[in-house]
């Protein structure tokens, strides 16, 4: 069998249709196991393709044989491939974690796993697709699964959060669709590579309008301030692993789209500054809001928003090193925030309000989970020798190269805020008074395995960042090198005349 990026999309879609049938006719358990197999397969594809592109450069695959720019194509560049691999790995770990997650009760677990799988698939689709309309479609897939997962618990708060998400998300859909329409009327194509090639043909005022529409539309998914009102509620009301999925996968896809629009579609420098300021403001507001939170999940949500702001800002700096840093940040955020959500949801398992005070003294009762949470907290604030430090260092030195002293100061000042609230949690965890009434939930083995895997990744990358930097360098090059992208997408698939 030829491994192709199409399998990323096709296999899960197929599985999604098959699962209800399988579970009905063969075994119920299959509904929960099959998504894992699908994810494993995705990881397998990722590894194979990543090895391949080491030689070939960019792989461009056309769905259903229509050639670009008319057909719908999937582009597996080092950049998108990196993100796709990351998403499939995180998706797998989240599946592993949520397998047997007691709260997702048996009846619904079928739905849960299908939805989760579809969400990841949608996100991977966003990353891989080379077609702007397709991107919109995948975004809708992701968004709709995300809405339903947000209100998965079928409680009042969950429904409210889901509704809010839906409300804001529909704005995003409308705006993106509008932008695509305008784009299509102007250029008559939906292929991103071709759009990038022809973007200078659009009248300037229209071009800026399109950019604004895209920015706001994808900005909603990328949690940019002030478009991120949905995020805290969605994070905190969805099941624990879904919070991890939001942070590790969905938002990444949004950022990808945003970055793709700015870097590849319209190479406008004003947009870089916009990213910097937008990211900075997002970061400041989110982190300072996180400081005042007493709810652990909300705190993590705000922290996640802040991190995304940081990522946007890093992209905004725009140099090669900054983009490496930004990708590194995305990677780190994906693994660390997933770990935090995962371990955090076991730590607050039986607490209704998910208050930080409920963690008091759990360090003794749940030693391993607590240590993992501690590692996550240390890593996310950027303490060496954990992985978070390196990404911060990359971004900062990139900023320093551009002599953005004020920016550095602000980032670090915000980091101090971050340190305060994370360390507050850690110290409550380990040094708080033990509350004997709290019933703890021992994590299942598979959840433990997935968390430990994340923890070890954090440590390994922290001590020896070289394992990841090579990938990042390639990815960054792929992102900035617009010409190669256009050329390889268009030429690889064009029939030889």
């Amino acid at each position, binding site marked *: 069998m030829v491994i192709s990026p199409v399998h990323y999309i096709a296999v899960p879609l197929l599985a999604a249709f098959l699962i209800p049938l399988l579970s009905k006719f063969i075994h119920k358990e299959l509904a929960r196991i099959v998504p894992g197999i699908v994810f494993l397969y995705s990881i397998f594809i990722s590894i194979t393709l990543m090895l391949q592109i080491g030689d070939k450069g960019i792989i461009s695959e056309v769905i259903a044989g229509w050639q670009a720019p008319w057909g719908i194509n999937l582009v597996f560049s080092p950049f998108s491939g990196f993100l796709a691999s990351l998403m499939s790995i995180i998706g797998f770990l989240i599946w592993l974690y949520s397998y047997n997650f007691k709260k997702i009760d048996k009846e619904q677990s079928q739905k849960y796993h299908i939805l989760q799988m579809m969400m990841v698939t949608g996100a991977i689709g966003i990353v891989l697709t080379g077609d702007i309309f397709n991107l919109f479609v995948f975004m809708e897939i992701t968004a709709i699964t995300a809405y339903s997962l947000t209100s998965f618990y079928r409680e009042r708060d969950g429904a*409210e959060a889901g*509704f*809010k998400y839906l*409300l*804001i998300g529909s*704005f995003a859909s409308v*705006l993106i669709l509008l932008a695509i329409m305008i784009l299509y009327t102007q250029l008559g194509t939906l292929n991103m590579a071709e759009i990038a090639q022809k973007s200078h043909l659009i009248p*300037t005022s229209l*071009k*800026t*309008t399109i*950019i*604004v529409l895209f*920015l*706001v539309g994808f900005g*909603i998914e990328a949690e940019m301030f*002030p*478009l991120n*009102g949905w995020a805290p509620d969605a994070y905190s009301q969805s099941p624990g692993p879904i919070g991890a999925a939001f942070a590790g996968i969905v938002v990444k896809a949004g950022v990808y789209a945003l970055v793709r629009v700015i870097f590849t579609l319209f190479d406008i*420098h*004003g*947009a870089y500054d*916009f990213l910097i300021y937008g990211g900075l403001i997002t970061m400041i*507001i989110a982190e*300072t*809001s996180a*400081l*005042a*939170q007493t709810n652990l999940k909300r705190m993590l949500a705000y922290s996640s928003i802040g991190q995304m702001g940081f990522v946007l800002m890093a992209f905004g700096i725009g140099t090669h090193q900054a983009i490496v840093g930004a990708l590194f940040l995305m990677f780190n955020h994906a693994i660390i925030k997933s770990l935090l959500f995962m371990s955090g949801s076991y730590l607050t398992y039986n607490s209704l309000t998910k208050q930080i005070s409920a963690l008091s003294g759990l360090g003794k009762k749940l030693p391993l989970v607590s240590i993992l949470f501690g590692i996550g907290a*240390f890593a996310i604030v950027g*303490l*060496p*020798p954990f992985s978070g*430090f*390196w990404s911060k*260092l990359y971004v900062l*030195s990139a*900023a*320093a*190269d*551009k*002599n953005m002293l004020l920016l*550095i100061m602000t980032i*670090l*000042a915000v*980091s*101090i*805020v971050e*340190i*305060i609230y994370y*360390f*507050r949690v850690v*110290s409550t965890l*380990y*040094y*708080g008074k033990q509350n004997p009434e709290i019933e703890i939930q021992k994590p299942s083995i598979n959840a433990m395995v997935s968390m430990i895997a994340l923890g070890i990744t954090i440590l390994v990358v922290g001590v*020896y*960042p*070289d394992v990841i*930097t090579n990938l990042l360098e390639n990815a960054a090059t792929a992102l900035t090198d617009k010409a190669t992208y256009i050329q390889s997408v268009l030429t690889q698939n064009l029939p030889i005349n």
Partner: protein
Amino acid sequence: MNSFFLILLILLAGAAISFALGKISSIISGTVAFLSIASASVLFFTQLKNNTYIEFPLGEIQLQWGIDSFGYIFALIVLGLGSLASLYSISYMQNKERTGIFYFNFVLVITSMVGIIFSQDFISFFIFWEIMTWSSYLLIIFNKKDVKEIGVKYMIFSAIGAYSMLTAIVMIKGNYNTFLISDAIQAGAFNFTNNEYIPILLLIGFAVKAATMPLHVWAPKAYSNSPMSFTVIFSGAMSKMGVLGMALVLVRIFTFNANNEAILPNFSPIILQQTLAWLGAITAVIATLYALMQDDAKKLLAYSSIAQLGYITVGLAIGTKLSVMAALFLAIVHGIFKGALFMVAGAVERQAGTTDMTKVSGLIRKMPFTFFTALIAIIALAGIPPLGGFVGKWMLYESLITESNSYFLVILVFFSSTSAFLYCYRFLFGLFLGQEEEATKDVKEAPITMIIPMLILSVLLMVTGAYPGILFDPIAKGMETIGFNNVTWDMSVLGNIWGNSVNMIYVWLTIVIVFIAAFIFLTLKGLKGTRYVSTKDISTSGEIPLEHENLTFQINFFQPFRRAAAPMYKRSMDKIWNEIGSGLESLFNFTRKIYTGNGQTYAIFVIAFLVLMLLLKDTLFLN
């Protein structure tokens, strides 16, 4: 295998093993920690030669490790004190909970400090610096007391320091495209002409660890609340890491200045130098004033540490040969005597249960060796001849008077050091003298593994008093490494540039002769008629203190002094920081309210943002 890696590996392995063994037995775990630190020290001092360097890349960054004479000075403190403190903590941590975590972090702190000394590039420097910070954070809150306040304060200030350092580091990278310290120095990264922010930011970073005003507020509680065997390291060695960095940066500034090259017109290093020196002196004064008001021996020592670091800062900031020498000498000696004193406090805490001086008194008969250590260390701390502390103080004063024109600084420093006598006395009196408490009737002397390190340190203090040259040797070499030339020293004669000197051998001779003569006379004379009575047998106008009554004067000890110096107690940096903190917090509370939780509001945000963007699109995206 390379000795650098070997040393760090031994230490890391020690940390890991003692963590694993912590559940089984605290003694075994402590022994492992001690053995790993001791063997690392042995390895360090036997295997590593000066000026050996290794280079290796990590994450596209060229890292360099090495050891030079300057780092050697601090290695002396870190590894020497580290070995003794780990030996000490075997008994100190006995029968305590969570010893695994303690030893893990303890060894990790030592490891990171050794790493800092090894680091010849900023990245590994910063990495080790941060490891040191968070591992010490975990130790500070180890006792579970006031975790929120102490830990958060420590973390905030450490983060401020670390991040200003990080800013400077990335700026060096940005401007000079190097992470190597030596390259940065060559390129003039610390010079004021090129970029005045880099040295200042670095200095802020180091000043936090050196607890210089106004960044010192984390220190008192952090020092006093961590387990004492760690505070030995914390105050004795870890604060010296700040000194190390300060010395590096400051000396760079001043040697540059001494060459009389261009100085920035508006902001010359002289101002920085004076500012820092004054900050150091004010730190010393304020910390001393607070130290003598403390009722808890640990807190007293904590404040005293801050004051001593203030002297060191003054010495470094003045930046002449003698003053830097004094500062480095004081740094080592402070490590020794403050280590000894914290060990004493720990011994008292372990044996008597508390170090609150209003609750413990009259331990001298019960813990004679501990008292002896305390006495020697206090004499050194007070800077009274003939011990090591005096040597450092003497050089500091002489350098201030003879080599710089900062006469008024001398007065401040002197005021602080005279007031230090008060708390020195308070410490000895509060714990060891006075009448015995009923509650501490059955107190025994500390176990031998605690006594030995204490006695070793007190002997060291005496030796450095008689032969300070032992320490001058590495210090002079280190100073030559960082840019001074022709650093002269003598085995036991201290001299200033005016040609005046003190010969410590003569001082010792006189004191010893007089001591022996007087001791023999006073002891032998009327030996039969001399009776040693209990401390309850005192002339209290004939009133007989009952068993449970303790007449020792302990509360409001320096009330008259406090009254006299009342204006100086009115404001405290702590309060100012707290106000800033609460102000920021309410500001942050305001930002939190942006997220109302109302979907309509969010929708309005989105629409408003869209409209705003559409309005501004031309200015934003057209360029």
